[in-house]
């Protein structure tokens, strides 16, 4: 893992260095103009969050059924990182909305879905923190249920919002011109890579914590 870490860091750093230029050069969106630029890191943040959520859920399933503690470490790392990217999405979304909708919060389907998933993820971290001994297993159950639930949350919020459309959802997203795609793809890849890097770092922390626990255990002998 360490061998991969450095090249990944360099690639990610290069992508992030180039991203502002690519974003600046991308054409202005016709109605949203400047504010539409938030799109280039708002949506990638969601992509990163969903990826982390699924990593967390799958790793939890592996931990639950195979009892692999390594999987549990990946799960807790992914859970934390999903909360982080969810937070980024939840903050940048309303900043965009302030301009686009004129209000900070709109019960937009995407934003609502994200808020609910963020709640599930925070609940996951809370079980781990306050559940007492053996809470890793309980948390793994929550993560697995949360991952499956994300599909239902997504669909039901979507239908809840769009079956009776009274106000607009984010229309500008729909007008993504092909000319914006390269910059967007670049940002998306950069965010997913960043998520991977953070995940590796956080797993490293979890490993160190496990080593420390083992040292305490060994010390008692």
């Amino acid at each position, binding site marked *: 893992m360490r061998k991969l870490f450095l090249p990944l860091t360099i690639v990610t750093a290069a992508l992030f260095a180039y991203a502002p230029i690519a974003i600046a050069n991308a054409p202005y969106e016709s109605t949203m103009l400047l504010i539409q630029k938030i799109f280039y890191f708002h949506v990638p943040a969601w992509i990163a969050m969903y990826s982390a959520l699924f990593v967390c859920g799958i790793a939890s399933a592996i931990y639950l059924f195979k*009892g692999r503690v390594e999987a549990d470490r990946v799960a807790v790392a992914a859970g934390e990182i999903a909360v982080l990217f969810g937070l980024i999405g939840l903050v940048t979304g309303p900043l965009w909305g302030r301009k686009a909708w004129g209000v900070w919060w709109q019960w937009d389907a995407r934003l609502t879905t994200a808020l609910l998933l963020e709640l599930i993820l925070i609940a996951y971290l809370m079980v781990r923190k306050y559940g007492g*001994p*053996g809470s890793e297993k309980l948390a793994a159950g929550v993560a697995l249920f949360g991952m499956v639930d994300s599909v239902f949350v997504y669909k039901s919020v979507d239908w809840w919002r769009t079956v009776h459309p009274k106000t607009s959802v984010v229309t500008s997203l729909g007008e993504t011109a092909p000319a914006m795609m390269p910059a967007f793809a670049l940002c998306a890849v950069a965010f997913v890579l960043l998520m991977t890097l953070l995940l590796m770092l956080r797993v490293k922390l979890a490993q160190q914590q496990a080593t420390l*626990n083992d040292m*305490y*255990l060994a010390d*008692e*002998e």
Partner: protein
Amino acid sequence: MIVDFDRVELADVSRHFGRRRAVTRVSLAATRGDILGLLGPNGAGKSTLIGLLATLVAATSGSIRYGDRTAAAAGPDIRRGIGLLAHELHLYPELTARQNLDFFARLYGLDARAAVPAALESAGLADRADDDVSAFSRGMRQRLALERSLMHQPRLVLLDEPFTGLDDRAVTLVTDRLRRIAAAGAIVIVATHDLDLADGLVTRMAVVRDGRLIADEPSGAGLRNRYRTLVTGGGGAARA
């Protein structure tokens, strides 16, 4: 399918909760006819060991074998061979003694009409059968719980502090009962911190402290002194 076994064996079993070690590398075996006393102060890991043997707690490492199989390999039927009397009594206080026994008899697939009166008789509660368990004294509940856990005639009988709240006469009854089922071919494992009661009952004693097995030997005269050196005075010796 009937899953039976003559021997239960823990091989290098550990159970950790994060930084806390409940059980550390315990290897222990018991065969039919044994009454194995798990002795040790409170918090020594006795209850976790009982939980591990009862398939309620999963080991962090090591394996537990019932005969030549692990619990996972043997499937749910292995639990037909296990009877557990835990510290908490596994009874519904809202139900009567008869209802409690009836429910558990059916849960184990027994003929309730035969098993329930027999168990009530054994517990000496035949005349109180239709009273709520919540109205019983601790001793009565303890007797009822013991019969409940023995109703399906398990091969492996696990008891966690079975003498709590019993008066002398009841203790004698319980110890006699345990001797009888051991003589009939059961493996009896009794976890207790009470040496006086264990003395004379157990055929072997395993002493645990801080989650480790520090002695495993046939019991006999001098058990009390041996235990005292192990648990209190002989800390350094046990560590080495």
